[in-house]
């Protein structure tokens, strides 16, 4: 979707608030949100659906609320959409109501959590019968249009010419995964010159690399 989340190249957001501080959390609530996002049971969702639900936050909330706050709002939305909670549950003293589980998850120790992190190294690729359509070094053009759902082709690269730099294998296609459908499609690292992307970059040798799925690309016949 052409949403507020698609920020690459947008102007007017001011300078970066530079920070070399390596503290992971600056408020206790940020840490709580991080921890619950890692460990709460979820209603059969995919990472792409979760990302899409975050994109669907209204622009004023998306830009105006702190980062981990947007995680919390996204979590609320995914649980409510799946019927695991309701808007009216929020703030109730005892909110067991719909979707209460009889077997709450056990308390994990630090060691168990560290093991879980290690086993959470999810792979998104799979063997497919098809051969890759594009070869390394081939010139391609990114699609000119997006669609209303979740997609990972940013607006700033649409219609632009790039070069296949690597084929990363067939990965889960986010556009379908955000609808709960798992199909695999070749995903390429595509190199775009800064000059191709931005008028003001004329004469600069810089490059921007994006990881793009086969259906986002077509061969450049020029």
């Amino acid at each position: 979707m052409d949403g507020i989340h698609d920020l690459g190249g947008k102007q007017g957001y001011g300078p970066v608030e530079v920070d070399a501080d390596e503290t992971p959390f600056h408020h206790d609530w940020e840490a709580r949100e991080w921890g619950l996002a890692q460990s709460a049971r979820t209603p059969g969702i995919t990472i792409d659906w979760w990302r899409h639900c975050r994109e669907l936050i209204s622009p004023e909330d998306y830009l105006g609320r702190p980062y981990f706050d947007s995680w919390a709002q996204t979590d609320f939305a995914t649980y409510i959409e799946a019927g695991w909670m309701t808007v009216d549950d929020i703030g109730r003293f005892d909110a067991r109501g719909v979707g209460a589980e009889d077997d709450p998850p056990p308390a994990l120790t630090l060691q168990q959590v560290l093991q879980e992190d290690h086993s959470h190294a999810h792979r998104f690729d799979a063997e497919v019968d098809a051969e890759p359509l594009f070869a390394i070094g081939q010139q391609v053009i990114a699609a000119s249009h997006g669609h209303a759902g979740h997609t990972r082709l940013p607006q700033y690269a649409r219609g632009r010419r790039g070069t296949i730099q690597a084929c990363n294998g067939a990965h889960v296609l986010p556009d379908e995964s955000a609808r709960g459908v798992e199909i695999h499609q070749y995903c390429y690292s595509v190199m775009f010159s800064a000059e191709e992307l931005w008028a003001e970059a004329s004469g600069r040798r810089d490059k921007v690399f994006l990881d793009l799925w086969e259906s986002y690309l077509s061969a450049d016949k020029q």
Partner: protein
Amino acid sequence: MSSKFDAEKVAEIHQHLHSHLPSESALRVKALETLLVDKGLVNPQTIDAWVEAYTDQIGPKRGARVVARAWLDAEYKKRLLEDAPAAIDELGYLGKATAHLKVVENTDQVHNLVVCTLCSCYPFSILGVAPAWYKAAAYRSRAVRDPRGVLAEFGVAIDDDIEVRVWDSTAELRYLVLPQRPPGAGGMSEDALTELVSRNSMIGTDRNLIKR
């Protein structure tokens, strides 16, 4: 019950949440945790353990160890550049969001910078929780368009003859920058070298590491 993947419904839910959620971030997250605990969907002690893991154990010190080892051991560096997930797993660091890790190397001619313009993708198991600026609109919008301007704000000046390569994390691949070893750091131990590697240098917003 499971998700119907109904985006229109979610857009509507967000409108309700906009007016129904408590007024402050801390209260909103508290409401979510309370609800999930009440419903038997999360264990608060497990939340504690995850917070502890990402505060004390999993963070940029892991990335710094990988970088220091690559500086000292040419064979390790070769493995890291060819198959980063396997190479970080030699140190037990494979985990959340690093199964498709790629390491990109800075040289005298090349500087690498990592961003996620569409959300905030980050190689958690090796760098920990992403810094606030990495997730903010200013960085996400400008890193791909004005990387040299962004780098200047971090105090990093890039000569015109150095090529800047920006990696926009649009898929499940994640990127770790291998910074250059600072001059004069020969003969230092791996432990001592890890102290020289800043988190920002592994994202690409720091370049010229110095021997302290």
